[in-house]
């Protein structure tokens, strides 16, 4: 169990760094989605399935989608 938690924590740290390094918001939306999915895996490993479900819905689907749509709108205005 400890190994799974450690692995999930490491993946979350790597993915979080990837979101920061990605720099541009449109790329960040994609990495953010992956980061959200890995965070849900971590919550599952820590035996919090309710939180994991919310995380998948909000962090993996809705927030990245809103960022993508906002970026698209900003590009149109240029």
């Amino acid at each position: 169990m400890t190994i799974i938690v450690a692995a999930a924590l490491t993946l979350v740290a790597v993915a979080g760094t990837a979101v920061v390094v990605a720099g541009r918001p449109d790329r960040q939306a994609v990495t953010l989605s992956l980061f959200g999915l890995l965070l849900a895996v971590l919550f599952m490993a820590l035996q919090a399935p309710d939180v994991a479900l919310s995380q998948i819905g909000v962090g993996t689907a809705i927030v990245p989608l809103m960022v993508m749509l906002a970026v698209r709108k900003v590009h149109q205005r240029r």
Partner: protein
Amino acid sequence: MNRTARTVMFLVAGGGVAVLAVLAVLRMPAFGGSHHPYRDHAVRASVSHATSNVVASINFDQRGMDTLGEETILLASVVGVSVLLRPAEDESKSEHLGSGRVLDATRLGGYVLLPVTLVVGFDVVAQGHLTPGGGFQGGVVLGTGMHLLYVAGRYQALERLRPVSAFEWGEAFGAAAFACLGISSLLVTGAFLANVIPWGTFGGLLSAGTVPVLNGAVGVEVASGVMVLLAKFLEQAIFVRSGEGGTR
């Protein structure tokens, strides 16, 4: 404020936060320990109210007031997005819809997954008091699941199935139902959001008293809220064009 002053201010404030954070972490119980007094009380209270999902019992029964606050935050953000993203005076809503190319596999995947996702969403709401999930999670699944119609390449189909005004009413209705349930239990028992409905048998679909009812109200509110939010964002990104000299 010049650069030096800002750096000094950051170092002082950042140092203070760092010291406090380290002190707090040092005094925390060890990671993964087995001593959880709050858990023991919460599980006992949840079982005594015939709620098999302890998290649902905490969210809707033991700490229902907190959940009402969270639902109000969601309502406020949906209202805020609706106000901010309405077409401005110098923007026009274009009727022209550029038909993008959609892969057949994507289209098939969208249509196959749509009913599956909707059934899963309803199930997550309806079984929220028994298994992990609940109104919020199920509502998000339902609200995003409907957008598989858009992924499958038919924005018109999505628009027909999604009268935004109905979902705006749904959002308000869900939030109001939650508050009304709280007020009616206040009138009956003298405690806001008290569990007034008979608890039923532990583990049965009809159990946990008010928890499944509140789950339903939250499910309606969250599903409607997600639909309205994404509808406003999609409308701005796809249809609304800024008018003459509209670039700001």
